[in-house]
């Protein structure tokens, strides 16, 4: 839960740390990365290098199906309705491949790929990018741990590097006293990190003020003025350390 917000916020935090960041929204059916990043829908410029991504307010370069679809329109493909399950996945796989290869990302330190729920798109990505590195995002509950554990085992089975775990919704930031109170039972982040021998990169609490700022596309304010934002900044610093020490 909350993978897109974590992806966008971590991307913005890395950019604030002086890194060059791209954000690829691989959730073709439920794209939100552009809106969360404050990237205004604009006609995408086509150059000899490819299609230029949109720049978010934080400077992160964003590519998302959201930028191509009409407001509120679902993603559909030309073709016969009958048996569309046969080729729909292939179309989305091709879209991911083109977002990787045909977008003029320029020189980046990080290309963050926000994956949809499930494992199919993650496997597509690992197939397309041999060096793909995965960060697991979970909430504290046992049900989430079990689901994330299966996905992470799949990742490791494909020899992709698992960089660490982020626990999202790790408590609730009280509006009144600003203290973080328990929200979900469990410690999925710690347990997953231990089980897979990777660091727990951080625990990000649910913070209504952060959610409000993210909804408004103001990740910079979210990162600098909220408890959840501070936790995300800490995750970003830890990510840089992990990659630098590899």
């Amino acid at each position, binding site marked *: 839960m909350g993978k897109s917000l974590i992806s966008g916020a971590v991307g913005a935090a890395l950019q604030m740390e002086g890194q060059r960041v791209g954000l690829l929204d691989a959730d073709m059916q439920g794209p939100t990365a552009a809106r969360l990043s404050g990237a205004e*829908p604009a*006609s*995408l*410029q*086509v*150059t*000899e*290098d*490819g*299609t*230029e991504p949109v720049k978010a307010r934080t400077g992160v370069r964003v590519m998302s199906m959201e*930028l*191509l*679809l*009409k407001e509120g*329109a*679902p*993603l*559909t*493909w*030309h*073709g*016969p309705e*009958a*048996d*569309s399950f*046969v*080729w729909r996945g*292939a*179309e989305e*796989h*091709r*879209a991911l*491949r*083109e*977002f*990787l*290869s*045909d*977008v*003029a990302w*320029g*020189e980046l330190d990080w290309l963050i790929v926000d994956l949809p729920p499930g494992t199919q798109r993650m496997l597509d990505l690992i197939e397309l990018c041999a060096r793909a590195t995965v960060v697991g995002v979970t909430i504290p509950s046992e049900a989430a741990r079990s689901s994330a554990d299966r996905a992470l085992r799949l990742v490791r089975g494909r020899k992709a590097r698992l960089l660490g775990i982020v626990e999202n919704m790790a408590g609730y930031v009280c509006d009144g006293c600003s203290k973080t109170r328990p929200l979900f039972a469990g410690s999925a982040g710690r347990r997953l990190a231990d089980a897979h021998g990777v660091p727990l990169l951080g625990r990000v609490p649910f913070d209504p003020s952060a959610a409000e700022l993210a909804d408004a596309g103001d990740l910079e304010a979210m990162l600098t003025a909220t408890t959840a934002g501070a936790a995300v900044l800490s995750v970003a610093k830890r990510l840089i350390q992990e990659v630098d020490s590899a």
Partner: protein
Amino acid sequence: MKFLCVDCDEQMQLEERALPGDGTLVAAFRCPRCESVVAMLTNPMETRLVSSLGVKIGGEEVPDQPLQGVRSSMSGGREDAFTDEPIPASTTAVRWSVEAVERLNGVPRFVRGMVKRLYVEYARERGITEVTPAVMDQARSDLGLEGM
């Protein structure tokens, strides 16, 4: 996908392709030696599946362009999602020799843009104004891309 004339051991050439508009596709192929002709018909589902896998039968329907698959297959997209007028590219300062372009065209299309950018950035960083096969060889060696 290719068709082979078994008797002549020759690759058959595309003779004709037709898109009747109902989602089906008809293509005819002729053996250049014995003139035998075979025809292939795909139903709408097969046509869509083959297209989504990036297989092109008998040439292009739309010009080669970035995000071509998405642009040609997606419905419900914004009319103004892309600008028709390309802006000057940052890579135009680096020219490509004919031989280098031919070699680049041998790279699978889905990674070609990425590979091209690597060479252009390599050239630009070193003040090289034209990418040639020799520059490509040197870049592969310097960047550790021998496997690409």
